[in-house]
């Protein structure tokens, strides 16, 4: 079995008096492509956002590359190794596409302008957007913005990529181009944790599917088993609605 990259231990999260995550423990291995699925409001996004401490859990711990994310003195350094892609893209609208990609590497990884730009152009080329380098985010379509957001995270050379419903805000015809980029990443053995409603992606690309409902970690399975042989009632009820 591959090396453990992220270890989630008895994670609890409460907002006010509402418990959104109940005692979740899971291990994420190097090279895993994990799809987290479940009904709306099940705590999927909260779980993902706990992994890089954008949300602070009420109880429990997250160990990333041997270090506690929650008790780390320098969570900023750990976050450099955990790329994140958001539903709303969250590109920096006051910067060109190229600057969006080079800001992190230049300021945080202390790369030279030339080095950072060379790497950024290579990444843009990879997602077919090298001709957009000089444009600004709001001049791009949603699908293009999301592809830029993915390579912005990749520019930091992360060890894991977290995706928070990356295709949910996209027009249907743009979903494919973003999923394709994610497929390519998976083929390159990038470790990925993906909160998604794209059952096709979960089935074809991921090697593990985690199912959450009402803040409980109900089950996990290989996609084949999850989609075709799962006997859990709640999973079956969910699948009957989405498939």
């Amino acid at each position, binding site marked *: 079995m591959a090396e453990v990259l992220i270890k989630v231990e008895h994670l609890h999260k409460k907002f006010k008096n509402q418990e959104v995550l109940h005692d979740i423990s899971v291990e994420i291995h190097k090279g895993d492509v994990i799809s987290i699925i479940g009904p709306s409001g099940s705590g999927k996004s909260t779980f993902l956002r706990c992994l890089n401490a954008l949300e602070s859990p009420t109880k429990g711990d997250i160990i990333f590359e041997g270090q506690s994310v929650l008790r780390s003195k320098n969570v900023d350094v750990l976050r450099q190794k*955990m790329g994140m892609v958001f539903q709303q893209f969250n590109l*920096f609208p*006051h910067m060109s596409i190229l600057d969006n990609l080079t800001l*992190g590497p230049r300021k*945080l990884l202390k790369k030279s302008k030339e080095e950072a730009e060379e790497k950024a152009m290579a990444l843009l080329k990879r997602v077919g957007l090298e001709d957009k380098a000089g444009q600004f985010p709001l001049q791009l379509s949603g699908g293009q913005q999301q592809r830029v957001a993915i390579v912005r995270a990749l520019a930091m050379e992360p060890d894991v990529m977290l995706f928070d419903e990356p295709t949910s805000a996209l027009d249907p015809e743009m979903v494919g181009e973003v999923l394709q980029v994610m497929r390519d990443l998976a083929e390159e053995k990038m470790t990925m944790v993906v909160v998604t409603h794209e059952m096709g992606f979960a089935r074809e690309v991921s090697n593990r599917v985690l199912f959450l409902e009402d803040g409980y970690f109900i089950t996990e399975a290989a996609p084949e088993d999850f989609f075709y042989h799962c006997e859990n009632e709640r999973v079956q009820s969910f699948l009957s609605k989405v498939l």
Partner: protein
Amino acid sequence: MSLQEHLYMNLVQDKRYLYFLEGLKNTLIITFFALLIGVALGFVIGMIRSTYDRTGKGKIANGICQFYLTIMRGTPAVIQLMIFYYCIFTSRIFSGVFVGIIAFGLNSAAYVAEIIRSGIMSIPKGQMEAGRSLGFSYGETMRYIIMPQAVRNVLPAIFNEFIVLIKETAVAGYVAVQDLTKAGDIVRSRTYDSWTPLLTVALIYLILTMFFSFLEKKMEEAFQRKERG
């Protein structure tokens, strides 16, 4: 009397233009330094307040700032000015100009702070999250990502505050500062001519505020929002 005679009497005779020049100088000095204090302190307060709004951190600092804003925005600037001059800086080693700078600066800071706060709050939360997820600290994200966008959004409101400030300094005469307004008043009392000195003063203020408007337009052009498509 003809217009020329009016102008001669109020501006040239007995070198009365010197009153206006001296007044303009004091008005500009007070405005300039008060503006610096206002912007610097306003930024700090605005940051503290929006940090509290967004993260819940700095409760005590936020409380102090809020108290400060309530007082500064809730009482007339001219009263604050007189309190500073007659109650706090009572030693006359402090000139009226100095006290004016302090009073107008602290007063303006309250307004700038709320403008900055509204600017920061207008930036979607996702921008902070995107910055943090790349590995930037809260402060770095503020500096590279939030503030450049926030300042751009509040530019018109900030310049509006500058224009208000320059006109507000017209009450500096209350603490024995011979500012532009006072200069006009002195000349009026010498020449018993009301129209010419007051219109002269009004015109100078107008030119100053128009300069600010011009500056604003230039800055907005420089900030040209290419990103809006």
